């Protein structure tokens, strides 16, 4: 991944820029309205945070409770340590049942484990059934937003894509496009041997998996094929069924601003004898993939409270400019900056904790009040510690410059000397009171902005005059 390169490209992409502004504005406004209309919104967020904090602190017990209750309901539970294990578990289930094709509903966890590629490699067809995901899959891309995977595509892009990949005439009306997708997908649902979903929540007390959606495709994915496999990150747990009455509205209102989503599926085990529909087998795959490592770190543990509503993305001034793909992996925006490095290993995403101005807008909207600036700062210090150990020239230079800076600012006389020296040193670049160009790395400022000149009389020198003049003080 290369955030600097990819974000610079995104910033220069006019089409992407207008798409991002449109979508983030719309989501922002919707969330704001919904939260303003919900009495005690802030207290609800506080309560949700407490519940998550408690759950994550007792994750082992609640996971076992969940496992017991899923089993009791007739489901099977699998534990996956990492992405590969999770893929293999799912591929195995498919193979054992002779499954040739799989329908999928939207799930970031399946993105995280690269499930589609894994299934494909095993000779099993996987079809995304969420409209946005379907578009992304046709285009051979990855989602750029947690809840709206195709927001980087314009209507025109999609029309062209459909014409090219599906052999249909060019049509520009969203309803027409949706209709085409729906017709294609209907056949897929009926022919699929297995449905794979994610999970928004898993309830320990009842062994229930909860899926929130608007299109109805997840409902079909989990009920039409004879086998349903749900992949859930271990942090998606809630202790009590009653917790849903808090978390469902928080999730939906933070995500889309709706009062409630069109569909909420509560899935407890496979079809029972009296049921009219539903799969004959239900499997729950519990995914660790780095999460227990986050759990072990007290300072960044709250990263696991996330319920993936996407509000932090929509309200992030950086995401709004760079879009989801700049973050280089599954998760993007503020949650991506804290969770990608922790899930992938900090050495593989060392830029991300720095890809934030620390403005804190994300914390204001996060339904579980994740303290982003705190976690980002914590991760930054980890990155620095790791980098210093590598002994790379750039890392050493940076470390040395901070060491030098520290020596200067911890000694007043040296600091004052440095002020005097820089006054002289800046002369070659000074034009009309500002510096219009500076050598690298400061050129990265002066390429598009003037830099202020060091004052000929810094405040401390002026103070001496003010102080001497006397007066009432």
């Amino acid at each position: 991944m290369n955030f600097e390169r990819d974000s610079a490209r995104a910033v220069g992409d006019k089409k992407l820029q207008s798409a991002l502004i449109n979508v983030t504005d719309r989501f922002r406004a919707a969330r704001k309205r919904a939260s303003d209309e919900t009495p005690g919104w802030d207290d609800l967020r506080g309560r949700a945070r407490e519940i998550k904090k408690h759950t994550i602190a007792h994750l082992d017990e609640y996971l076992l409770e969940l496992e017991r209750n899923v089993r009791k309901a007739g489901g099977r539970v699998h534990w996956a340590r990492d992405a590969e294990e999770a893929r293999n578990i799912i591929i195995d289930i498919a193979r054992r049942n002779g499954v040739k094709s799989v329908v999928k509903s939207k799930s970031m966890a399946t993105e995280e484990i690269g499930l589609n590629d894994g299934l494909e490699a095993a000779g099993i067809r996987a079809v995304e059934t969420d409209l946005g995901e379907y578009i992304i899959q046709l285009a051979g891309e990855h989602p750029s937003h947690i809840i709206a995977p195709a927001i980087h595509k314009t209507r025109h892009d999609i029309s062209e894509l459909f014409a090219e990949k599906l052999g249909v005439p060019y049509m520009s009306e969203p309803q027409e496009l949706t209709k085409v997708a729906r017709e294609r997908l209907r056949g897929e649902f009926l022919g699929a041997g297995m449905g794979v979903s994610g999970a928004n929540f898993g309830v320990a007390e009842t062994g229930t998996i909860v899926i929130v959606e608007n299109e109805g495709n997840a409902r079909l994915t989990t009920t039409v094929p004879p086998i349903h496999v749900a992949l859930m990150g271990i942090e998606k747990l809630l202790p009590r069924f009653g917790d849903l009455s808090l978390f469902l509205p928080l999730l939906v209102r933070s995500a889309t601003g709706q009062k409630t989503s069109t569909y909420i599926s509560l899935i407890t085990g496979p079809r029972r004898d009296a049921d009219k529909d539903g799969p004959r087998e239900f499997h729950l795959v519990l995914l660790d993939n780095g999460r227990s490592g986050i759990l072990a770190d007290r300072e960044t543990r709250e990263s696991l409270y996330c319920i993936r509503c996407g509000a932090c993305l929509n309200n992030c001034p950086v995401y709004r400019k760079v879009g989801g793909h700049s973050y280089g992996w599954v998760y993007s925006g503020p949650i991506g900056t804290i969770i990608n490095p922790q899930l992938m290993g900090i050495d593989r995403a060392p830029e991300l904790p720095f890809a934030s101005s620390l403005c804190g807008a994300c914390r204001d909207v996060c339904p579980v009040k994740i303290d982003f600036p705190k976690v980002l700062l914590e991760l930054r210090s980890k990155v620095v510690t790791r980098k210093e150990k590598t002994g790379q020239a750039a890392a050493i230079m940076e470390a040395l410059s901070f060491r030098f800076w520290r020596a200067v600012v911890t000694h007043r006389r040296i600091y004052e000397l440095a002020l005097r020296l820089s006054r002289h040193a800046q002369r070659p670049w000074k034009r009309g009171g500002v510096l219009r160009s500076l050598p690298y790395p400061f050129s990265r400022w002066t390429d598009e902005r003037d830099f202020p000149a060091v004052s000929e009389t810094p405040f401390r020198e002026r103070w001496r005059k003010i102080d001497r003049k006397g007066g009432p003080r």
Partner: protein
Amino acid sequence: MRANLFITCLVDTFFPQVGESMVGVLERLGVDVRFPVEQTCCGQPAFNSGYRADARSVAERFVSVFGEALSQGEGEESYVVCPSGSCTAMVKVFYKELFHNEPRILEKLRRITDRTYEFSEFLVEVVGKTDVGARYDGVVTYHDSCHLLRELGVKDAPRELISSVKGLEFREMPLHDSCCGFGGTFSIKFPKVSVSMLDEKLDSITGTGADTVVSSDMGCLMNIGGAISRRGIPVKVMHLAELLANTGKG
């Protein structure tokens, strides 16, 4: 009432007129202003860049310099007052992180943070004034410094102060609370992203038709002002203290 100026290295080095304005306003209100000369920087640049050990030793020095200054109150109510939301947040919010397992320093720190205020908050909450006798003939819009707004929760104080200035018309800009793209080293680590955030901020400012943009942090203003001067946009850039220092009497 005594105010020990925590002037910040940015104001000391680049924007001394902001410090002078602050002194002017505070003295006009009868505050006894002091400047602990041993001060340099609060350590934020290193802290935000992940260099905690460097930040820590600079911060420790800050704690001793201002601890000392506050102890010389001579029976006066003594405070630390700072023209930056960001640097105030560093001391009041982030020092706790930095010293989280050093109870001895935390104890000293608490005595300082209890008495440390950002300039606008100090005027409104401690001095108890919103009308400080300023006059300004112009149309002003206000950019919320992220740290002042979200780390310290100060939103109304600067607006109340601005609105009380005689002759002035205040216009709220859309996206007033969006980051301007400064973010310290963020602005040079990812200059394209930073400038693109800044572009939107500038549109938001000029869209109001204001002739002056005011904020409470020179970090933001050096970013906003840097583009305004480069592009020749006819908008004046001013720290709140400079605005309030105007009395219209020459």
